[in-house]
């Protein structure tokens, strides 16, 4: 097997006295969707923020293409091809889709001494990329606030892909979505993976994870409970691991397997 795109080894992260991560290891290969599962507060968001350079790990190392790196800022990670769509979405609802799409990397056109945004190019690319993801915009000047939750996720994903992400991290992209929007986002993940991008997909919904995942890592209270390949593990087992053992299993008995 080739070297993973990115590998995090024995990551620990302390916030003062809170130990949010206590030795988590995850690797992501090109073209795979690696699902990170865990209950609320398990440390999923903290872990991917470490991967994205937002947090610096207290202990542990990050290997990029087999070489150790230190991401001291989010910009470092972005420049290294690690793109993240945060749970609280890095989208600004009052601004247009185009302005959001190009945020921080606006294309420039020189007019005399002025360096202006090349809106013609920016709008065209935005429309094309969104269409490629299956979303038809009314117009590129449309505010992001007028889009549905699933469409916003798609703008964020399309943006990352267009700017050459090698690893795409999605923090609970489906948790606030309805059925159809969820399936659209999952379809998008599948498309992105087929381009050879490594996807980290965070969820606490086992069905969503099983739909697209190639490998599954379960986090519980800041620790890895193990990584399994698709086909090696059943949804019920994942569900049980996430809940941290017996409690849910007993619950499930009384609820008749509906959880």
């Amino acid at each position, binding site marked *: 097997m080739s070297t993973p795109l990115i590998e995090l080894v024995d990551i620990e992260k302390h916030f003062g006295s809170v130990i949010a991560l206590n030795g988590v290891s995850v690797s992501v290969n090109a073209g795979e969707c690696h699902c990170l599962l865990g209950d609320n507060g398990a440390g999923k968001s903290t872990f991917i923020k470490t991967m994205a350079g937002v947090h610096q790990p207290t202990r542990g190392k990050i290997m990029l293409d087999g070489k150790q790196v230190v991401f001291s800022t989010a910009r470092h990670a972005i420049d290294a091809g690690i793109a993240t769509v945060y749970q609280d979405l890095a989208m600004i609802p*009052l601004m247009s889709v185009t302005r959001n799409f190009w945020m921080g990397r606006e294309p420039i056109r020189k007019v005399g001494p002025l360096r*202006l945004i090349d809106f013609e190019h920016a709008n065209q690319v935005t429309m094309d990329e969104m269409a490629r993801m299956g979303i038809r915009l009314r117009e590129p000047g449309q505010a992001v606030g007028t889009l549905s939750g699933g469409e916003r996720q798609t703008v964020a994903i399309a943006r990352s892909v267009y700017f050459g992400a090698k690893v795409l991290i999605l923090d609970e992209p489906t948790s606030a979505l309805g059925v159809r929007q969820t399936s659209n986002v999952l379809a998008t993940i599948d498309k992105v993976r087929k381009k050879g991008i490594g996807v980290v997909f965070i969820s606490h919904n086992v069905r969503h994870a099983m739909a697209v995942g190639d490998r599954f890592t379960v986090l519980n209270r800041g620790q890895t409970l193990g990584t399994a390949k698709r086909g090696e593990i059943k949804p019920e087992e994942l569900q049980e691991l996430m809940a941290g053992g017996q409690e849910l299993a007993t619950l499930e008995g009384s609820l008749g397997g509906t959880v």
Partner: protein
Amino acid sequence: MSQADTQTGSPNGGPPEEDVDERIREVSSLRKALVRPELGSICGAVLVFVFFFLIARDSGMFSPEGILNWSVVSAQFAIIAVGACLLMIAGEFDLSVGSMIGFSGIIIALFSVTLGYPMWLAIIIAFVVALGIGWLNGYLVIRTGLPSFIVTLAFLYILRGLTIFIAIKTTNKTIIGGVRDAAEGDWLAAVFGGKIFKGLFVWLGDQGIISTFVAGNRAGEPVVDGIPMLIVWAIGLVIFGHILLTRTRFGNWIFAAGGDAQAARYTGVPVNRVKILMFMFTAFCATVFATCQVIEFGSAAADRGLLKEFEAIISVVIGGALLTGGYGSVVGAALGALIFGVVQQGLFFAGVESSLFRVFLGVILLLAVILNTYIRRTITGER
């Protein structure tokens, strides 16, 4: 893979997207042209002009001198409104604008008149000090994480107090006169206090297009002898602010910093730098205002600029900006300033009791904000 494919449905399939499209009403191009952040202020401006045309047409309000009169007042509002507008869009307030105006004025008069430095040097010193204070405002807001409302409120008092203290300590007065003599023949003073197109106005006077003085020591000169630099500054700042905001990368970052600072940071926007620069720009605009005023009046007074911060903010809000940041228009703010100036001077021309100015302004503010809120919701899908 098969499992993924069956569960995720058809990515390019027709039905889902067509469903969505059916639910988006076609937006007529007229509506699209109308629904913009400036609409409220455009309506307000039209309303105000029609109103005064009806009640004050014969008062000389629309003669060349009358037009110059309210243009100058509007230009004053516009200069500080541009700064306040960009800062508000970047998500911050500056309540120290009025005090900054008094402070910069006293600095100029102190260095030029009291200390005898050349005028151009005094003006440059005032700008450097003002930019430094703007930077400090921004730095404190960023560093402490306190609302800019509080930090700049502190500076409203600090600067006003310092201004009076400096004036009294150095001259025993709160007014420093003699600026006009000090500014005589100074190249930089002319940039703020001069007039342009003088020849054109002489020609217009000679042609009888605008009237000329018939008696006195200015007999034969046109009643309006040029466009004051104050107006040139206002127009220049509005154009600069508008292009910066809507057409440049930095403008995109201003919107982003005010729209959602955290989201902007995630995408690599230097939010702190943007905000600090906007505080400095606001201080710059306040100093432009102060310099023009000091040279025009020939004096600086420690109480100048009182309440200007609110007048600037009101102009910006009439212009369609959102108080919480991330949304607004420089052109709108300029129209807000125009409304402000026309109403203030128009009531004077119409001979209306001047206390009614505030009533009138309050009503316009309320109407414009209600209309703006509706427009903004339509555009942004805000709920």
